[in-house]
């Protein structure tokens, strides 16, 4: 199955955002949801059946100057085996954010079912002065199930420079993925990139910081950004790390998605604009 979906958000000229393009096809269907406000929320619907091996899915998102868009999904994506011999299923998400624009991407997790063979490619380009909050969660296998193969690749560019490049491979074709260097016994992983003029993670995280570990920011990092007070270890297996460029990565792993959500959900919000 091939499908393309496209989403373009623009400033409406009255301090709000309008959707200039909202186009999808099964299984990538898009619906505007949520209350009217300064920003627009769109949900991916119908994402539950698949992707299956052989599927080729593309989603393109463009956020214009001074527009604010949140993209979520109503259900987890479940990567499934599909036709034997077909190429890997593939979801390519490409997003651009203009100066003064803001994009929050926070879909439900991708679940790697047994026997799947899935490739997820994310390519995000943010102009200087744009804001990005990008969350991706992966669950390796349904309940008590060994996962198939998933390879994800993420490239995030900010102001013309590559801010973050990351690939993760899980499943039988990935040597050592369940070993103590990569995921160990964890079967869920979440990552959250926050990039922009004030790249601190979102407000009031109050994570479960009862791990007893000293949780100060890395003394090696001056941490001058607005969110720097919250950099460092979160509770459990979660940490917020300042990137070399204007952004932070919050990363969490856990036996299932609950620990990941507890650590990352409070941070997965668009920063409140700073009055100029």
């Amino acid at each position, binding site marked *: 199955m091939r499908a393309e979906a496209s989403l373009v958000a623009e400033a409406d000229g009255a301090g709000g955002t309008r959707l200039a393009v909202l186009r999808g096809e099964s299984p990538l269907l898009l619906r505007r949801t949520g209350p009217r406000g300064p920003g627009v929320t769109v949900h991916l619907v119908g994402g539950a059946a698949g992707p299956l091996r052989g599927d080729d899915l593309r989603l393109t998102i463009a956020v214009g100057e001074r527009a604010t868009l949140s993209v979520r999904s109503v259900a987890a994506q479940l990567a499934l085996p599909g036709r034997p011999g077909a190429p890997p299923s593939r979801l390519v998400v490409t997003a651009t954010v203009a100066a003064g624009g803001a994009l929050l991407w926070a879909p439900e997790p991708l679940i790697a079912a047994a026997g799947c063979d899935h490739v997820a490619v994310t390519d995000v380009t943010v102009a200087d002065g744009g804001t990005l909050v990008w969350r991706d969660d992966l669950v390796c296998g349904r309940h008590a199930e060994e996962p198939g193969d998933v390879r994800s*690749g*993420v*490239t995030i560019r900010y102001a013309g*420079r*590559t*801010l*973050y*490049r*990351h*690939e*993760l*491979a899980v499943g039988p074709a*990935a*040597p*050592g*993925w*369940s*070993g*103590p*260097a*990569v*995921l*160990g016994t*964890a079967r869920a*992983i979440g*990552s959250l990139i926050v990039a922009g003029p004030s790249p601190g993670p979102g407000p009031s995280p109050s994570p479960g910081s009862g791990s007893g*570990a*000293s*949780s*100060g920011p*890395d*003394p*090696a*990092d001056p941490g001058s950004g607005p969110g720097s007070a919250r950099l*460092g*270890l979160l509770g459990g*297996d*979660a*940490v917020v*790390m*300042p*990137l*070399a*460029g204007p952004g932070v*990565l919050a*990363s969490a*792993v856990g036996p299932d998605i609950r620990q990941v959500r507890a650590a990352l959900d409070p941070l997965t919000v668009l920063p409140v604009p700073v009055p100029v």
Partner: protein
Amino acid sequence: MSLATLLVLADGRLPAGGHAHSGGLEAAVSAGRVAGVADLEGFLRGRLSTSGLVAAAFAAAACAHPSRWSGLDDALDARTPSPALRKASRAQGRALLRAGRAMWPLPPIGREPHHPVALGVLASAAGLGPEAAAVAAAHGTVTGPASAAVRLLGLDPYAVHALIARLAPECDRLAAVAAARTDDPPDDLTAAGAPLLDLGAERHATWEVRLFAS
């Protein structure tokens, strides 16, 4: 290519500070993730196919194109979200250059590049090719934590070296892959990551008492 020169570059006794780093092993041991040789094998396989693959790719590219060291260095920053790991990589790069300058004349390169970039430029200055640089990089990502495991856990050194020998063909394979892609733009080079290495490095950096710098 001089095989003896490659041995000089990859020798664990090279005074480049490598013995001070455990490649994330100390944090993994403390977290209870590595206790014996079987765990160590899982750790090393995962590290080799993530950090090792990246180090091999960047050492090969820097060896093939020493003048592009700065762009490769930026690309490694983008692949290293953990500040503790960026710091450790740059400290090892600087130490390697200090040792390297005493051995071969080096082209211009920053004071504190990431270790794989320093290794590639040094390999080039020593007259080695990209594949040799990549082998040294991949092998180093295995031997560092392996020797740390012997010291931290008192593992049988024979069993640990048997493990290193079993991983040698995989080091060769990764190096060949890396050497075939040295002309790719930096964004296209591998970015294989290991979440627990990042987490462990950040946690480790907060310890007041530790045996290894990373």
